[in-house]
């Protein structure tokens, strides 16, 4: 109802359309590939944000879902299941894997949870490296979701679709009771259970949702590059990159992961071309600057700035104690 009148809604629709039209503005496949990666990782950042941002559970194991999505697609198509059905099945399997990881790891809080997720990601990497089905360290060739001369353009459009899907999910969650539950868990888990929230279940639900999208992203990514090895899709690097994207842009905000992905991957690409190996230095400095000056991330930091301007809880924040004395 009010959505139609809301300028923010229309601004986002226009932004999405421009985003989808980007291939018409860039000249070659390399640039398109960069855009594809930025878009795809924006979607992954959004998916991670459900668990890491809204629910505040620092997962450093999202490569597990990314990798299971990629391997799932490859293996299901080997069973001569159509690619699109394989894609869906791969995401379902990743969700089941997330259920197992979640049920075990969510018993732990804080840094212990983060460590457990790293462990699970690494276990899966080792399993994939040592099994015959997964091709061991040699890896597997991937079926392509799109073929033909313009396949990069199609992959790009698919990544835009994924980002739109992930954004919609986060939007709906953030406006729902479930979203409030996740935020309550992030702020204080004891308080959350004191108001009747089944905290283990809510955390698990957020992880399942997140894993499903992450697996779709992993399968899409691997399919575009047509070849996977454990070290490319099940590596800790991916887990860390996804979480940094969300935190840099602003964990627990709707636009944060998108901005984080554009900034991080975009600058990585630019500096790589300019400075070769020393690009990592600049990349590192960038992260340090944001962490130092905007610990809430870019979007989070800006929001805080505006909130402070709007209503500073100083003089007017005295509680009504005087008024309460009858």
């Amino acid at each position, binding site marked *: 109802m009010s959505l139609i009148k809301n300028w923010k809604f229309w601004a986002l629709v226009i932004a999405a359309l421009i985003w989808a039209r980007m291939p018409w503005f860039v000249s070659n496949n390399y640039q398109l590939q960069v855009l594809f990666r930025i878009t795809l990782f924006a979607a992954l950042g959004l998916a991670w944000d459900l668990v890491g941002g809204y629910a505040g559970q620092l997962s450093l194991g999202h490569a597990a879902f990314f990798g299971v999505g990629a391997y799932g697609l490859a293996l299901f198509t080997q069973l001569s299941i159509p690619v699109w059905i394989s894609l869906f099945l791969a995401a379902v399997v990743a969700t089941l894997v997330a259920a197992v990881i979640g049920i075990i790891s969510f018993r732990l809080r804080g840094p212990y949870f983060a460590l457990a997720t790293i462990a699970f990601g690494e276990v899966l990497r080792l399993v994939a490296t040592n099994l015959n089905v997964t091709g061991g360290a040699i890896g597997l060739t991937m079926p392509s979701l799109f073929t033909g001369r313009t396949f990069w353009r199609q992959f790009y459009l698919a990544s835009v679709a994924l980002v739109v899907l992930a954004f919609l999910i986060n939007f709906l969650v953030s*406006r*729902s*009771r479930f979203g*409030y*539950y996740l*935020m*309550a868990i*992030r*702020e*204080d888990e*004891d*308080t*959350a*259970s*004191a*108001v*009747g*929230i*089944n*905290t283990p279940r809510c955390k698990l639900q957020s992880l399942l949702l997140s894993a499903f999208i992450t697996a779709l992203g992993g399968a899409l990514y691997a399919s575009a590059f047509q070849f996977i090895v454990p070290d490319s899709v099940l590596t800790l690097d991916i887990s860390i990159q996804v979480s940094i994207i969300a935190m840099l842009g602003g964990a627990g905000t709707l636009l944060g992961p998108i901005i984080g992905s554009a900034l991080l991957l975009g600058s990585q690409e630019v500096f790589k071309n300019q400075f070769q190996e020393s690009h990592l230095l600049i990349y590192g400095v960038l992260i340090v600057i944001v962490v130092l000056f905007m610990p809430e991330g870019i979007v989070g930091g800006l929001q805080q700035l505006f*909130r402070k301007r709007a*209503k500073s*809880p100083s003089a*007017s*924040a*005295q*509680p*009504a*104690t*005087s*008024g*309460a*004395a*009858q």
Partner: protein
Amino acid sequence: MTAAPILELRDVTRRFGGLRAVKNVSLTMNEGEILFIIGPNGAGKTTVFNLISGFLHPNEGIILFQNQDISRMPPHRSARLGIGRTFQIVKPLRGLTVLQNVMLGAFMHTRNLQKAVEESKKILDFLQMSHLSKFLASGLPLAALKRLEIARALATKPKLVLLDEVVSGLTTSEALALAALIKRLPEWGVSVVGGVEHVMQVVMKIADRVIVLDYGAKIAEGVPADVVKMPEVIEAYLGPKFRELTQ
């Protein structure tokens, strides 16, 4: 005090390693009653609250809430049965606004955001903190945070609220103002168990009944005016020397 008991503890014991933090405590509480558990620092008050609200489970004995055994129930299920609680060390959802904090309580009964807002506003009005509703909880002073704890608990529409040290750390005027509001809680259909270490002024004013704990055991029970004169209570607070003085 005619209604059926809303809460009953039967010989409840809770150990932490070798320490018996709560020893064979029994108590019965009637609907609409305001009961205060008092006792010196370390007497086991907070442990009793954690046992009733499901954050801890007893080693021995049972806890009945409306004749249902809740001894082994996880906290979120106790909350859904109608046991609201506040925390001694306030646990606000710091990154959320005051209104959102209270809404989380209201969400126990509604999925609808608008409804949650309306109910929360009513409760904030009652606690005289509507003017703070848009501030982040992280910026509030202690007196407001103590109220916020009550507001959030009240929004879950509990039948029983546990107020753990809800007036400690407040100035006398703040504490008395809050006490006046606590006295009105039964209007919302809730019974109250309060826990207080030493703000006796508040207890004397609003408690229907007082239970005194010392080293985890119940040492006295009765109306406030009687309890404060009991030699055991004076000894627990002031030492054996003062017990002799009263005799």
